[in-house]
């Protein structure tokens, strides 16, 4: 394991310190817990948005704290959901009197920890709502499972719910638009190489020199199956076939597109994938309204990527276009 760290146990703590050194005008940290909030928190008269999850997904989630997006990010240990006390402190710190929306990715651990925190905050009389993001189409939905995972599409929830909250909307309205995003959001990913949790010290799985993992999550957990390596065009087609069929996306639909790098895949390759996605969508007569190519929700140094489509209507378009100013997401 070759990593630019000092001590595997201190990774999150030291990362937060470095984050605050980098963005002193954007962020501050709460005392005693790994929670990062807007410098100006709480923003009076605005619904507070709290998200978070395990660390290792940088720039998610702390990078999205700022004007037009989140109010707080709770940072768990690497790939481990944050704890209820952290989330509870975050809720208290960002409640500007209009209540707080929790944006949770659908993992057992995340859901349980956030809901415990919600109960605690409600006992204090704070209005708290939640939405659960489940955009990953890799895993078949079934009554036996707990629904799908939340992956990179979560960033669109942050962006759009964030813009709505910034407009001064009520908690119920912010929640509603977040749920509309979630309903229209589909993603899927794949990996070329695994990643290594610093405290574990070795890769969570291994892949042969010619093998790829399809349907990968964002925590180094295995995907749905393995295949021999193939071209960018073929890989994109495999992911897109599942994504597009799922909602379904229809003729002349307008979408926001995210081609998200998982960590080690060069931006040049993400642009090649973006070309393939666009050509695929032209073939389906689905129109790309806005594109995001880059590392938005990573999985440490994993090599691979995910594709996200969000079906848009006029409301979502306007909120997506609204300005935002956070460390990792700026829009003029």
């Amino acid at each position, binding site marked *: 394991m070759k990593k630019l760290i000092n001590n595997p146990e201190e990774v999150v703590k030291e990362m937060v310190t470095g984050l605050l050194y980098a963005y002193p005008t954007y962020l501050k940290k709460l005392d005693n817990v790994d929670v990062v909030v807007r410098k100006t928190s709480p923003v009076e008269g605005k619904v507070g948005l709290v998200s978070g999850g*395990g660390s290792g997904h940088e720039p998610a989630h702390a990078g999205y704290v700022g004007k037009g997006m989140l109010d707080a990010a709770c940072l*768990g*240990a*690497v*790939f*481990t*959901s*944050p*704890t*209820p*006390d*952290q989330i509870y402190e975050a809720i208290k710190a960002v409640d500007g009197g209009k209540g707080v929306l929790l944006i949770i990715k659908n*993992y*057992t*651990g995340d859901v*349980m*920890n956030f809901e*415990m925190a919600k109960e605690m905050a409600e006992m204090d009389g704070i209005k708290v709502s939640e939405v659960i993001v489940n955009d990953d189409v*890799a*895993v*078949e939905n079934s009554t*036996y*499972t*707990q629904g799908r*995972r939340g992956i990179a599409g979560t960033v669109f929830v942050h962006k759009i719910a964030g813009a709505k909250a910034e407009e001064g909307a009520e908690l119920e309205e912010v929640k509603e638009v977040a749920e509309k995003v979630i309903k229209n959001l589909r993603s899927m990913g794949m990996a070329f190489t695994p990643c290594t*949790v610093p*405290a*574990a010290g070795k890769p*969570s*799985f291994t892949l042969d020199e010619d093998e790829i993992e399809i349907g990968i*999550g964002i*925590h*180094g*957990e*295995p995907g*749905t*199956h393995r295949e021999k390596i193939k071209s960018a065009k073929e890989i994109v087609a495999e992911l897109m076939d599942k994504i597009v069929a799922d909602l379904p996306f229809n003729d002349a639909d307008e979408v926001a597109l995210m081609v998200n790098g998982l960590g080690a895949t060069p931006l040049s390759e993400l642009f090649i994938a973006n070309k393939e996605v666009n050509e695929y969508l032209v073939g389906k007569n689905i129109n790309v309204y806005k594109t995001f190519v880059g590392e938005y929700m990573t999985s440490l140094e994993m090599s691979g990527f995910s594709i996200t489509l969000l079906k848009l209507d006029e409301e979502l378009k306007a909120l997506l276009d609204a300005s935002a100013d956070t460390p990792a997401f700026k829009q003029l």
Partner: protein
Amino acid sequence: MMILMLTKSDVTNILDVIIKIIEDNRQYLTDLDAAIGDADHGINLDRGFKAVRDKMTQFLDKDIGTILKNVGMVLVSTVGGASGPLYGTFFMRMGNAVSGKSVLDENDIVAMFEAGLSGIKERGKAQFGDKTMIDAMEPALNELKKALSEGRNLKEAIGAAANAAYNGVLMTKDIAAKKGRASYLGERSIGHQDPGATSAYLMIKTVADYVDKLQQ
């Protein structure tokens, strides 16, 4: 006939051993989680139980119920992931069930285990056969109750419970996960042992071994 009871110092001694056992099995539990999860179960629990060790002196003068509740609260605020709220709830509910006590008899032990397990089920909405920690805990609880009702002593009953937990762990190898992160793997989770069931077994086995060595 002498009746075996667990004193407060028995409880804290057992906690000490559990902390040690989790530390020793940190890598093993993490490796199990790597196969079907996200490679952190051992790391998570070890972080949590180390925090318990650090904070133990703050509540060591309290009754058993309060001690267990505090252990649960420390776990909730340090473990994270799925196992944090689940084991945290488990210990908190156990503590609640024996609130104020400084010694535990058979009935207390059954009651607290029962309370803890139902806490896990409420919180995680899983049931036996979903390939979770419940697959070790529920057979253990059932066996404990059965053995005691058949008139076997606590040593024997807890020993039998640990065996049942072990069989539960083995069973998790043969089934697909329906809850937790491993459920996303579907059929691919078959063939792998559940990390949470394994950690639950390790804790139950620790209790059994400790009780077994007590002078009756």
